[in-house]
């Protein structure tokens, strides 16, 4: 931070915006520490989606009538909101998809197979979500491109020396790495990674599924070629994701899916693609979800990404002060720059048993391998529990987790 005091959040007011947070779990207060898997939704998002369906819904880009025009306007306004949110230079650089997974598959298909040569390579990292591993394996198997895996350090940071080594032969066409690990909480140095990639003649994709929730993202400042995030982790609905892609790249990329809305002209002989981004939005898009995402962006921006970041930093400090103090708890990763995601193992109990216990205390954490199997292998652990924070998480909830973990360890001794 640059010295000035960060604005603090009015947590009571924020929590009141999220109806589900006042639900009880077996009579206990609901302590939701799984926002990293999917965040809860504020009334503002729920209301915007309901209002759209009740007052302004029709298919988009298709009808020459009032409701369709209104819906189209709202859908395009959502695109403009996303462009502002990421500080994109041009709204056309925003493609709506169904999720982060869909967005990465789009790039793996249209760029990985459609633009890259089989002689080129893609670099991912050891701390990727399966969504940023499997599409590249599929592209490798179908198209012959090489898949390189950049190492991470024991602290859980991207090994930039290894990245440089992986880029050295100039064969890399794309570096596709996470902007924030969904297991370790590590925030990667995006601007530096982009610089390294560009100097080696490669493009760069950031999986911002986690990062965009916790930090202000400026795609021009970091100079991302592709940037991906997903609506449901940003307090928005499921079924919508975002792909930011530079215009020149979209121009060069063939479409991913074919269908309605993505063409300028169709005959049985041939079709002419619509200009981007429509070229990549085949079929009826997630209209209501886009309106929900717009509301979610308005919501976080009304609080302020800087304030959210500062709040989460305080939670991270609290967690770092408490969790490692608990006997028998091992944290995965100790990155310098990190967000509110903590994966841990307990010496006396398996992650699933811990999660079941915590659930009895009303605490929801994820257990397993969090769609990051290779990462768990890298750290030599079978599975972990993961606590992840949202803007509604309170310091008291972090304490509750720490206390419950202490008791869980005793329970299994």
């Amino acid at each position: 931070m640059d010295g000035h005091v960060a604005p603090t959040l009015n947590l009571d007011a924020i929590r009141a915006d999220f109806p589900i947070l006042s639900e009880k779990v077996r009579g206990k207060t609901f302590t939701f520490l799984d926002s990293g898997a999917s965040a809860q939704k504020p009334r503002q998002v729920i209301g915007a989606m309901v209002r759209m369906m009740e007052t302004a819904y029709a298919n988009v880009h298709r009808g020459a009538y009032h409701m369709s025009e209104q819906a189209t306007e709202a859908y395009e306004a959502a695109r403009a909101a996303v462009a502002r949110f990421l500080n994109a230079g041009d709204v056309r650089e925003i493609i709506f998809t169904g999720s982060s997974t869909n967005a990465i598959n789009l790039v793996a298909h249209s760029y990985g197979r459609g633009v890259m040569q089989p002689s080129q390579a893609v670099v991912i990292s050891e701390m990727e979500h399966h969504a940023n591993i499997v599409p590249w394996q599929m592209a490798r198997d179908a198209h012959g491109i090489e898949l390189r895996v950049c190492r991470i350090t024991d602290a859980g940071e991207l090994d930039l020396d290894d990245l440089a080594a992986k880029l050295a032969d100039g064969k890399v066409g794309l570096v596709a790495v996470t902007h924030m690990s969904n297991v370790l909480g590590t925030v990667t140095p995006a601007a530096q990674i982009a610089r390294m990639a560009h100097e080696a003649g490669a493009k760069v994709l950031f999986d911002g599924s986690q990062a965009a929730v916790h930090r202000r993202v400026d795609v021009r400042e970091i100079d991302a070629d592709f940037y991906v995030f997903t609506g449901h982790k940003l307090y928005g609905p499921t079924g919508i994701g975002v792909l930011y892609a530079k215009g020149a790249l979209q121009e060069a990329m063939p479409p991913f899916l074919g269908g309605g809305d993505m063409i300028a002209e169709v005959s049985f002989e041939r079709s002419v693609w619509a200009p981007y981004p429509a070229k990549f939005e085949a079929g009826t898009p997630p209209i209501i979800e886009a309106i929900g995402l717009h509301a979610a962006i308005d919501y976080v921006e009304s609080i302020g990404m800087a304030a959210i970041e500062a709040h989460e930093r305080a939670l991270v400090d609290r967690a770092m002060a408490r969790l490692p103090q608990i006997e028998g708890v091992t944290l995965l990763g100790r990155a310098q720059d990190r967000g509110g995601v903590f994966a841990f193992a307990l010496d006396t109990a398996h992650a699933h048993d811990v999660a079941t216990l915590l659930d009895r205390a009303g605490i929801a954490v994820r257990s397993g391998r969090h769609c990051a199997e290779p990462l768990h292998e890298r750290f030599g652990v079978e599975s972990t529990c993961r606590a992840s924070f949202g803007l509604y998480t309170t310091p008291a909830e972090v304490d509750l987790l720490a206390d419950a973990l202490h008791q869980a360890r005793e329970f299994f001794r």
Partner: protein
Amino acid sequence: MSGGLFDDLRDLYQEVILDHGRKPRNFKRLDDADRTARGDNPMCGDRMELFVKLAPEGHIEDAAFQGRGCAISMASASLMTDTVKGKTQAQARQMGENFRALAMTGICPDCGGEIAEDMERLAPLSGVHDFPSRVKCATLAWHTLNAALDGGAKEASSE
């Protein structure tokens, strides 16, 4: 002991289960196994390898397992390998079917008869029926046993 936060979980984690989970019985490789199978619960990261030695007459002479997993899956495999020893393959399969019913519903209408005593030993695991996401931890061992008895090095999954 704990301050009571988790006391109502003693139904699930009965002492027998904690004990078998911590110190699983028959936790070894059987080098002379006639049948083996791997069981995998991808969501949890539970993994086991099961070894079955058959007598010349076909019944289960010995059973053992190795692997890693939660207390429920380890205890279930431990109890299972204990109880199926000496049983015919048909009896073992029948026990498995009964056990799945027990794990999913908490009751087992068919648990009487000649296997009543053995089913009684497995009863402490019936608490999982209250924890839908954990049922498959308890049934993994039995799925794996079926795969082993079906013959060959099959991969069982409780998904």
